[in-house]
């Protein structure tokens, strides 16, 4: 099971990195969305895939009886999902505003903050 998941994770990373190498913001954003999901699957796989037995200690016992699912990776992934979701929502709005204000989604043409051919500072006075 881990082997199959590892393959999927690798595929996700490949697609995400390919998309993020694009000049166009919208593709970069799609890449980031896939990147976030790839991370979540990585953590899930790293926590070992076990049977879907809830980790609940039976009444009257002090330890678990059998091997159960690992709850910690799921807590980590939930945290990561919330964070990457809010990040992604912000980036979508930012990209839309950038398209409105700058009139382009090509990062090569986004040179307002760092204009081309700025020239040298004064060399003397």
């Amino acid at each position, binding site marked *: 099971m881990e082997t199959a998941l590892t393959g999927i994770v690798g595929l996700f990373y490949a697609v995400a990195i390919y998309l993020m190498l694009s000049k166009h913001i919208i593709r970069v954003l799609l890449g980031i969305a896939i990147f976030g999901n790839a991370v979540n699957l990585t953590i899930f796989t*790293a926590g070992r895939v076990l049977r879907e037995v809830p980790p609940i200690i039976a009444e009257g016992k002090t330890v678990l009886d059998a091997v159960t699912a690992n709850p910690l990776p799921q807590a*980590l992934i939930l945290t990561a999902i919330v964070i990457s979701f809010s990040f992604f929502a912000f980036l979508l709005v930012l990209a839309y*505003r950038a398209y409105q204000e700058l009139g382009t989604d090509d990062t090569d043409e986004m040179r307002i*903050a760092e204009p081309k051919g700025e020239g040298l*500072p004064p060399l003397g006075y």
Partner: protein
Amino acid sequence: MAAETSVPVDTSAAFVQGATSLIDWAVIAPVALPILGGALLLMVRHRTRLHGALAFGVLAAALAACLVLLWRVMGEGTQVMTMGRWLPPYGITFQADMLGAAFATAATFVTTAAAVFALRDIDATGRRYGFYPFLLLMIAGVNGAFLTGDIFNLYVWFEVFVISSFGLLILGSERRQIDGAVKYAVLNLIATTVFLITTGYLYGVFGTLNMADIARKAEGLRASGPLMTIATLYLLAFGMKAAAFPLNFWLPASYHTPRIVTSAMFGGLLTKVGVYALLRTFTTLFPVERAVLADAIAVVAVLTMLLGVLGALAQTDIRRTIGFVVISGIGTMLAGLAIGSPLALTGTVLYAIHSILIMTALYLVAGLMREAGGSFSLHELGGLYRSHPLLAAMMLALMLSAAGLPPLSGLWPKVVLVKAAIAGEAWWLTGAILVSSVLTTVVLGRVFALSFWRPEQVSASRPDTRRIDPVAGYGTVLALLVPALWIGLWPEPFLRIAETAAAGLADPASYIGSVFSAQGGS
């Protein structure tokens, strides 16, 4: 529940027994107070007149908590607090050692000063859009990163301050800001995601996220686990956050675009969190891997130092000049990490504290020069020496300090680093530190000569110069200069703090012991 069926359970093996004494809350207060303050400000978001005073009050309380914490750490050593009473490694640990406490104190101090500066710099619209809540949440994230003892929790605090910094960065919604924010947001998101990936791998190998527990288990796993891979990925992620070459291009693209007080906070704090995370992972968790990667870190350090300052030479906008000087300083701190001896780490810690103070102050002075001279451009500034002698004195002091000359704080960290580099026989690191210092003198000396000594430029139209506020303007910069001058004239207390912090880094056993000894955890 029937009492007779329940098994008597001894919880002392898994739970903290007894209540937390009042003074122990100082460990969490530098994080909790700003978060509560941010929530409070959201509730009164329409009453913008209250924001400044409330934020200042909250930050002053957080600063007091930081000082209490620092005093306790100096007296009794590392302070540990565990969330939800679960003993480590189960609960999330907050662990204030000398390094974290000193950085948190410096960060909270400059944020308090910036909150006062913002009274003039941020108008009512900016406050209504939430400048002060973002500021408080950002310092909460930064302090959380400095004080946490759990690596996943460190990731969460990274995200807290990164998301708050987005809010600060785009406040005003100018075209430049949106352009800068796109690059800043995407590259920072990738950096924190790489951090998260690595943490996932680390969890898969170690089965724990508590940093002291990781450090304890690293020795046994070194033969079988891919620790080198994990360490290298952390170098990539934190190097990107710290703006180390070749991953620094988001910084000059964005740091000059927001309000100047925001630039000051970013320049002073955010890159230092990356440096802190590098120090923590590469000394406490992976000292052996650091030794293997030392040459790579040294190359990165030299390139960051030199290319940063060469970039600064080519700029006409003084905010962009300072941005490149910030990058160059990151290289100097990485040089200490590359050498790795306790003396070198002392230099890095002291340099980071100096850099938090001085880079913030430099940006703020740039903002005052804009108020006095009407421009950020070296082509248009001029004649400020005649009209604003106090500003000239401040800029001169900051220039000397950033370049590593007395009387302010820049001299001693560089002396310690150069001494450590010579002792470590790292001649080219020694040379790079000295050359970058000379070039920084040239860069900032030119800014000083052109904008202060050069006669006023007749071509420059100055529609929006205004009088500098004596308290919010000069007062805040002077407040930042006081500790910097203290480091410069009487460095012993600060050197002792940095030495203790470096000793704690060089000897992970003390960090591990502070978490596990008292409770005798598994």
